[in-house]
């Protein structure tokens, strides 16, 4: 039997609770007896639903984090910030142009950036938020798109900004303009869509649909696999996937048991 983990003391909105140690902030709040409605989403660091403000014991500083991605510590004083009221301005993606001042047109506040770097320090994703605000200010849509890519729109940056900049809508606008107007379109995709106009593709699929299960199985087993050039095949999953013993085949062997 493993030792029971010891308890820690935390404060939820100024009130003392004892909770099991080793829990994330979100789990510690639940352990204390709160049923979360706000402040919980994917619980895996992808959705930005659980921003948290906290102080550590013996420190006067205010920290920010995602409650699902941060451990509760003894002496923490926590408050959930489940919603940051950030203004976003609607636009028509077909009408915006990738011009140097397009972001400033929608979000003129970026010009008020005082380069304090508070946004970057507050970002739980470790994004260089201030840098992408600066690139946006310079009209560099590509860099703004690339630097902001890992954003999960939690809004912590905007809640801390002395200039009231709306960071994540700025990143979102830049990424969409960059992807739609500055990245070249896929010619292969265009070719496939042209080909599909001819109904040849549909005829091929229809042919498959009319095969018996036995014929389908035979075709499935005879599939040729694309090899991946320039990759180390020795320990590659791709090599395994490319063999006759395909990972998804096994149920056929046991289907009489359950199906």
């Amino acid at each position: 039997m493993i030792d029971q983990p010891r308890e820690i003391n935390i404060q939820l909105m100024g009130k003392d609770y004892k909770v099991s140690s080793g829990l994330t902030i979100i789990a510690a709040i639940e352990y204390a007896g709160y049923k979360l409605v706000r402040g919980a989403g994917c619980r895996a660091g992808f959705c930005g639903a659980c921003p948290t403000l906290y102080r550590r014991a013996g420190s006067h500083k205010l920290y920010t984090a995602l409650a699902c991605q941060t451990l509760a510590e003894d002496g923490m004083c926590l408050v959930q910030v489940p919603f940051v009221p950030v203004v976003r301005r609607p636009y028509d993606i077909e009408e915006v142009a990738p011009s140097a001042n397009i972001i400033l047109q929608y979000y003129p506040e970026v010009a008020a950036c005082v380069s304090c770097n508070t946004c970057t320090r507050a970002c739980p994703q470790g994004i260089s938020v201030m840098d992408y605000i600066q690139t946006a200010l310079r009209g560099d849509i590509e860099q703004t798109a690339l630097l902001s890519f890992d954003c999960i729109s939690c809004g912590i940056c905007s809640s801390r900004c002395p200039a009231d900049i709306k960071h994540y809508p700025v990143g979102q606008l830049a990424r969409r303009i960059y992807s739609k107007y500055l990245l070249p379109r896929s010619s292969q995709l265009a070719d496939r869509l042209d080909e599909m106009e001819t109904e040849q593709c549909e005829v091929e699929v229809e042919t498959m649909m009319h095969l018996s299960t036995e014929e389908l199985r035979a075709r499935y087993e005879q599939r040729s696999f694309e090899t991946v050039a320039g990759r180390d095949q020795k320990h590659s999953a791709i090599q395994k996937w490319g063999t006759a013993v395909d990972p998804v085949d096994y149920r056929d062997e046991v289907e009489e048991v359950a199906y």
Partner: protein
Amino acid sequence: MKLIRGYPEYMRKSIKQVERTRPNRLEQSIPPMSLDERKALLTKFHPDFREDQKRALACGPSKGMRIHRELADLLEAQPLVTSTLDLNQIDFDVDVLIIGGGGAGTVAALWAMKEGIDPKRILIVTKLRHGDSNSTMAQGGIQAADRPNDSPATHYLDVIGGGHFTNRADLVKALVMDAPSIIAWHESLGMMYDKDADGNFVENPGGGTSRNRMHSAKDYTGLEIMRVLRDEARNAGIPVVEFAPAIELLMDDRGRVAGAVLLNLETKKYRIVKAQATILTTGGLGRLHMQQFPTTNHYGATGDGLVLAYRVGAELIDLDAIQYHPTGAAFPAQMAGLLITEKVRGMGAQPVNKDGELFVFPLEPRDVESSAFIRECYERELGIETPQGMRGVWLDSPMVDMLHGPGTIEASLPAMFRMYQRFGVDMTRDPILVFPTLHYQNGGVVADERGATNVPGLYVAGEVMGGIHGKNRLMGNSLLDFNVFGRRAGIAAANYARQAIAGKLSLAHVEEYKRQLRDAGIDNDHAAPQILPEYRGQEALERMLDIPI
């Protein structure tokens, strides 16, 4: 508890064993199982094959279907409202109601609008926030046959073989035929896919695919798709009501679905939506924690849509097949159930037990691998127990850098590396503890290729819909699925809504379902939909007084 570089001391001792056997294991692996061995392992250890964990549905349109106990309990639970609820005050009167604000719901809303419905006559209602969904969490990619050496027919064969030939052919056809145009739509919306210098997509293989057709946006493919869809829906001005799950569908006096009862999760006030057409896009059920498994799913994935659809008479399919991913994180506890991509094993990391022994070929099929992990932990007792009582096996991640060179993990698995680092574990230096995790609902509500169910006025799309993937979904087909069928359901519902005139609203079907439960001898007092899972501490719950304040 003292942690040494992220692990307690007793786990460090086991890690020493892993390190001791590593040099030998770098040189040699063990062979894959024979087909007979696989069969024996699966039937004995795979959760889906545990007949004692399933039971037949006692009533309703799919009566007799054997499904997991937890889900059967939910479908046979009592409704949250009775037919005496006052339906006279209509709070929202819309053409198209969409229940579920994830990928499928947002796509459906955008296409209902493109089909000519006034965006103000569309309503998305969702349990948590717009975008809180499994869609956002999808990492790997989205399949579409758009390269010259590939074709929709090849994609079709991969999908239907992956589903063990149990998929509905017309749905698979829709999936693969629509795929290229979905990617083109995404391109026009400005989604930031990984592309080469010519603008063509960087496409990777996935489990069970014979061509490289996985389009991705780094490790954040689902996040990128979802946030652009949401941005577009906001630009379009489509109304969204958040924190307002539907707790029951409404029907009209002619037996058509005609809206829903919503519950404001904060005020507990109910509201009535009258709709000409209703689309269910509620996602999956990972948070039911079948057989106590952890899950990769988001907080709201409690299978609500299945309950709602079943009570109005919609048929279900393939819900006996739940997808478990072999490598969910088991330690640290704060990561329990989170997905560790198959790529880690693909790059050479081996699963080993507490003595550092390799006990299974690392790249067995997903479910075979899962079963081997379960056997190692619960029959052979050679797993490692965490301080929280969860068992797992080691995935020897440092092997990746040893085989492919230092820095490989940081470069090719950055999200994973960062997440472990946040909790004090360096996966380039120490192995990581893993155990199978509940990942996806393969089956769902029966629908045709337009997303129409057998109940007039009710459409479905996304994970709640069944039949597309048969008994097993391939990686990269769920992001595709919600786009393809979200679009189809949005269009079909828009056209239906234009012709329909919803009659007098009714909850008579709720009484009818309760009668069926009584006739089947089911007498319980638990209620569904569940809405959210219960994670409050035991001690707090034991002393909780349910007092109105």
